[in-house]
């Protein structure tokens, strides 16, 4: 097992398995990924970059597909779009 790494999800630090995707970090943090157009909270659906439900703000950039991005140490993730 690779070393766990630490990322921040909505301001809270969190250790995730090395190599985990950002979508995994968000689910582990107990957060949803995004608010839908009518205000529903949504989490990952397809896990493979197709559905765009896992969009989150990563290091300040909006609309990132978190299921296809690997966590890097110190990454800042926000889900309160």
């Amino acid at each position: 097992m690779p070393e766990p790494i630490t990322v921040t999800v909505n301001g809270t630090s969190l250790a995730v398995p090395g190599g985990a995707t950002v979508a995994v970090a968000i689910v582990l943090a107990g957060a949803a990924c995004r608010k839908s157009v009518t205000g529903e909270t949504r989490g990952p659906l397809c896990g493979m970059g197709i559905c765009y439900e896992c969009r989150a703000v990563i290091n300040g950039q909006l609309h990132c597909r978190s299921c296809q991005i690997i966590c890097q140490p110190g990454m800042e993730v926000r889900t309160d779009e």
Partner: protein
Amino acid sequence: MSGLTYDVVVVGAGIVGAACAEECARQGLRVAIIDRDVIGGGATAAGMGHIVVMDDSEAQFALTRYSQQLWQQLRQELPADVEYEPCGTIWVATDEEEMAEVRRKQNYYAQRGVPTEVLDPQTLERLEPNLRKGMAGGLLVPEDVVLYPPCAARFLIERAQGAGAKLHLGSSVSQIGNGLVRLADGTEFSAAAIINAAGAWASALNPGVNVKKRKGHLAITDRYPGFIRHQLVELGYLKSAHSTSADSVAFNVQPRKTGQILVGSSRQYGAEHGEVDTGVLTRMLQRAQEYMPRLAELSTIRVWTGFRAATPDKLPLIGPCLGDPALFLATGHEGLGITTSLATARLLVDQIAGRNPAIPIEPYLPSRVPAEHAYA
């Protein structure tokens, strides 16, 4: 076949045909609307939906202003999905030459009762912080509006249907004239008046009609609420020849009510196919990025094209067709058909019903187009 006899048959369920059908039905006329596709599936589905006052000519100003006021009157009745957004336009000036044009425009609009505000560089930057730094200023036209055209067309058609109009979708019209409308499947409709509102395809039904397809590209981003707040348009066309034949691109971006940014625009003659043209698209997006560098990082969802119906003098054709007084044209709106649809309908029905028009109609009559043009 009395069931297929109408006072008016409208060919085309784009925004112009929809507006004409609604106006006719409200006058108590028996109306049929025919489209080979869906409601608002032509240029109406492709256009930006900028309801804008323009001043290329006195006649263009009169029509756009009149129509904009008709949209304002309709505002309370528009359903939410029409996305009516009174965001205003800012004409962006990059240098002193363009600022002179800003002041000319302001003067022109002021004389004709259109409120405007000249913006200094600081105010412009405060209103639209994502524009490139160092702009010379701009002109804010607060009464310009943005809406979503396909739903606006559907709303008008529903109103027409509420007043008794019949809608026939999925039927292609193959022939019109002499009080008859024939569909490709052989069905015939007879009508006291026929309105050709087939947009850029109008000349396929009336071969003498001088409208040419003028292709445009647009791109749309994901949702970035607040990224821009007004429709932003360059004044750069001053520096280029006012060509009616060369391809051109311009910075023209629009905030959608969804928070998306719609990015235009391009103009091309001679292109018959709707495919995305990479060269034109690239230049159009480059232009936009020059004015608004931070566009670079926005996630862009889709690119599409549409066809404007262009006339030689840049004014629409509204009125009877040469040689057939019962056949009316409502086409040739080029890049302004969403704006001018409501006024077009009024002016056309004024002619059909013998009412007094609110503005002079002569500049828009098809008979103004010189014969050698019309039959070239």
